[in-house]
């Protein structure tokens, strides 16, 4: 059934469809409509689970972790400062191998205080051991939350599903809401282990020595790497049942391209138009959308980009003293290849600053004409480049 929905409300619909048992949340702009919608659904019985009004994001995540260890299906949502505040608990979640799904609405992290979209909030959690999936629009967000439960409950790792603040979170567009019975069929039966077994009591997460610590971390690392196969399989199955699939990356027109544009989140939509416009003018440009960020999709990135001469990356995020985070990761992923493209890093669209297709076209033309790839990022500020 197609309805007009904001990205936030699309995520709330997904939570309903997944029959989530426990939700703990704290309000923060621009995530609040997810929390409000779910609260409404719990109060009118559309969601049968428990809703805990938390007094902070740190506590919300703490309660999600212990509820998930008790074997029930769990959801939370946050943004920006809230995600930063949760940081400690994000490590606890992945280290305890719980299957939480969290929707993250990307927003700048202060200072200075601001509210627009910026992925630094979630990207700075990249080392917490969470699977991270970046979505382009509301439809993808809804579908990805459903897939995320299948993945999280198969590999026992928590999953972040991210959308751009205000652009995707508040923009209203037609969204196809899948049939509830089909979602039931798609998701694994609710059978997470209750790790507080009274007959077989265990002490979860007691203190370990360095030997055990490394052993636990190595296992977590290997399982995170392997999770990619589960993500690919979940996406394919979703495609079969619902007619939509996204891949861990999406490659478009890269085979013969002179330059490949790489970006993520809502910026992909602008890059699509830029690519189309340039192709119409006979300029060979391709596009790679990165959806999966952790585990990093090495094979796919190498497959689609290694043979190009030039790649440009647009990052709506910044690692101060280094550059755009996606750009940095791409460079790292390809460094050991014999043959690799030159990589041009651009930082733009911070705090939701408009980065229209025309600007992306100009960036692509600049890269085509400029043979020296800069070590440091080029800032795109204002509507012109």
């Amino acid at each position, binding site marked *: 059934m197609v309805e007009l929905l904001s990205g936030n409300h699309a995520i709330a619909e997904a939570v309903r469809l997944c029959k989530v048992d426990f939700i703990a949340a704290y309000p923060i702009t621009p995530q609040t409509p997810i929390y409000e919608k779910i609260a409404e659904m719990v109060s009118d019985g559309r969601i049968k689970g428990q809703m*805990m009004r938390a007094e902070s994001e740190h506590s919300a995540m703490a309660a999600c972790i212990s509820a998930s260890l008790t074997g029930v299906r769990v959801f939370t949502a946050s943004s920006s400062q809230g995600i930063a505040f949760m940081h400690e608990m994000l490590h606890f979640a992945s280290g305890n191998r719980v299957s939480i799904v969290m929707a993250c609405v990307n927003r700048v992290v202060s200072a200075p205080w601001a509210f627009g979209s910026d992925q630094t909030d979630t990207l700075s959690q990249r080392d917490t051991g969470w699977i991270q999936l970046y979505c382009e629009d509301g439809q993808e967000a809804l579908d990805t939350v459903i897939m995320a439960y299948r993945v999280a409950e198969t590999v026992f790792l928590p999953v972040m599903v991210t959308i751009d603040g205000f652009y995707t979170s508040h923009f209203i567009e037609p969204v196809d809401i899948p049939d509830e019975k089909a979602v039931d069929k798609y998701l694994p039966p609710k059978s997470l282990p209750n790790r507080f077994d009274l007959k077989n009591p265990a002490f979860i997460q007691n203190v370990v020595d360095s030997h055990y610590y490394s052993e636990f971390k190595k296992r977590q690392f290997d399982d995170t790497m392997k999770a990619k196969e589960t993500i690919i399989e979940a996406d394919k199955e979703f495609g079969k049942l619902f007619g939509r699939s996204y891949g861990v990356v999406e490659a478009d027109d890269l085979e013969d391209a002179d330059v490949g544009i790489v970006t993520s989140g809502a910026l992909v939509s602008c890059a699509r138009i830029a690519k189309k416009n340039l192709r119409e003018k006979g300029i060979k440009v391709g596009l790679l959308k990165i959806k999966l960020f952790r585990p990093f999709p090495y094979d796919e990135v190498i497959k689609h980009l290694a043979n190009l001469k030039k790649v440009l990356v647009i990052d709506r995020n910044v690692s101060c003293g280094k550059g755009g985070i996606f750009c940095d990761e791409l460079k790292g992923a390809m460094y050991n290849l014999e043959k690799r493209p030159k990589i041009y890093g651009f930082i733009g669209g911070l705090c939701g600053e408009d980065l229209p297709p025309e600007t992306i076209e100009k960036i692509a033309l600049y890269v085509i004409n400029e043979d020296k790839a800069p070590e440091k990022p080029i800032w795109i500020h204002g509507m012109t480049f």
Partner: protein
Amino acid sequence: MDTRDDLLRQGHYACPGCGLAIAMKLVLSALGERTIVVIIPSCEAVISATYPFSALKVPAFHSAFVIAAPTAAGISRALKVRGEDDITVLAFAGDGGTYDIGLQSLSGAAERNEDFIYVCLDNEAYMNTGIQASSSTPFCSWTVTTPKGKKERKKRLMDIIVAHSIPYCATATIGYPEDLIEKVKRAKKKKGTRFIHILTPCPTGWRMREDLTGIVSMLAFETKIFPLYEVYDGEIYRITKMPKGLPVKEYLSLQGRFSHLKEEEIEEIQKNVDKEWARLLYLAKRNAENCA
């Protein structure tokens, strides 16, 4: 008591004479096997043993420092979803994790009246990290971060918790195990947030002989430094045991952490204790009069 049936097994990692370990044992024996325990960084975490061992005979989860209360809330709500409503969820936290870093999350859970028992094991400093002052450390007490004695008074935590109007709050100490066990059992029968504040002497941090734990616990009560009482629904106070009202000096003089005290300081401590006792008596009597 037959220790073979203890839910805190022998061979745990507490220092000799640790009051906290005794409190854990008593609380667990009062609650029984159908209990899930939340532990946060503190002596109780170390006492509960390191991987792959466990001193606890019930399922337990060692969570982060700030969040004993919401962690317990997550479990108790999840148990409701699972339809298992005869299991007690218990949070063990120290004074640091309760008075200081964990107070916000405890307050949040208490305001929502989340269904669990929260036990604050109060040894009046951060003992596990090496005796640093917490907001529970008493006036004048030596710690490594208050080398000349703490200038501020102990935070009146019970008053803060009582202000949340939760169904049951109580104080207890290992010096009176029957009183402690009774209170835990009373708490177990109720639903919602229940809070028990237990004074647990720590020979290591209190700088005293290991065999004095029991005596010091009793003296804390008999000197009125640590009165034993209950509060129902944030309203009805009941003093569960009447102290003799011995001079505070008898309590203080056994502990190295107070060995530097001057007469004026002891007098001031006595004055504060008398004032707080009068206040508690007023609250308890007021209830009796109101009921009459």
